[in-house]
């Protein structure tokens, strides 16, 4: 197995410990090849860093704008009219 073969196949096994013949060959190559080891470790770091990026939640305002867009396209029913329909509301 050559570095190019490891480069092609190592991605499938990034986080796995598979016992297939190819995986065993990759593992054997990695033990002997510092370039491939460094490459695989840096790939793992790349994925870990990107995974840890913060991502925004849907804001209340964006949620409301979506409801307006869906209602105006006829996908959602009109909003329920507020009114003293429940016992609790009538008590208020």
């Amino acid at each position, binding site marked *: 197995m*050559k570095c190019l073969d490891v480069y092609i196949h190592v*991605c499938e096994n990034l986080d796995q410990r598979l016992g297939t013949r190819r995986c065993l060959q990759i593992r054997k190559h990695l033990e002997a090849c510092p370039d491939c080891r460094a490459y695989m470790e840096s790939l793992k770091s790349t994925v870990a860093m990107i995974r840890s990026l913060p991502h925004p939640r849907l804001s209340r305002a964006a949620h409301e704008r979506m409801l307006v867009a869906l209602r105006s396209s006829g996908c959602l*029913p009109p909003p329920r009219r507020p009114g003293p329909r429940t016992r609790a509301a009538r008590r208020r």
Partner: protein
Amino acid sequence: MSPRNRIFPSARRTLLHTGGIIFVKPRELKSLSEDRLIGAARGGDRRAFSELVRRYEETVYRYAFKLCRDREKAEETLQDTFINVYRKLSTFDGRAKFSTWLYTIVTNNCLMKHRSRKSRALEESLEALEDPASWPGGKFPHGIARWEETPADLVLARELRVQIESAIRKLPPDYRIVFTLRDMEGKSTEETSAIVGISGEATKSRLRRARAFLRAELAPYMHEGRTAG
């Protein structure tokens, strides 16, 4: 057995069957299973569709943001997606998971917004990276430098975050989609293939090239240690 019993045997207490269209009582929507909710929405119950939107809006928005890298575009994609879902719901045959079908619609909406000639040129250069002619004797063309430890906290450093963001934005959409589904959303190769509509082999090669591209973009900022070997 009446049609009402055949359709929703365990929930007949909560469902009304009117003129071939199934309507769910509003207070029962939140506890209804996804299959039944989809059935009711397909039958024209817009309150059932509204509950589907409630369940999936956050997932759709986050995935759209990860693909678009822009709040405004993610919001636009969110709206377009649910309008498309409403219009195409009658074509959903239930063979795939609903979430898989939904991811496909989000993906297509994002793709339509992102295709460009510049991306195609970059895709070709990613393919060329694997040309055996540029691997003398099958070995790495250049020595691979070892990265120093990169704890997740480091990503909070503004400079590095900007570089990561810039690297993801440069990635052509077809590659970014596969990378996002596999490495950020945690989808399997099979589900990613189904969402994108490509073979398992194509999914693997796009993931490999996407990771290699992102790694190469970040390498200059990773405080490279001694050259390995």
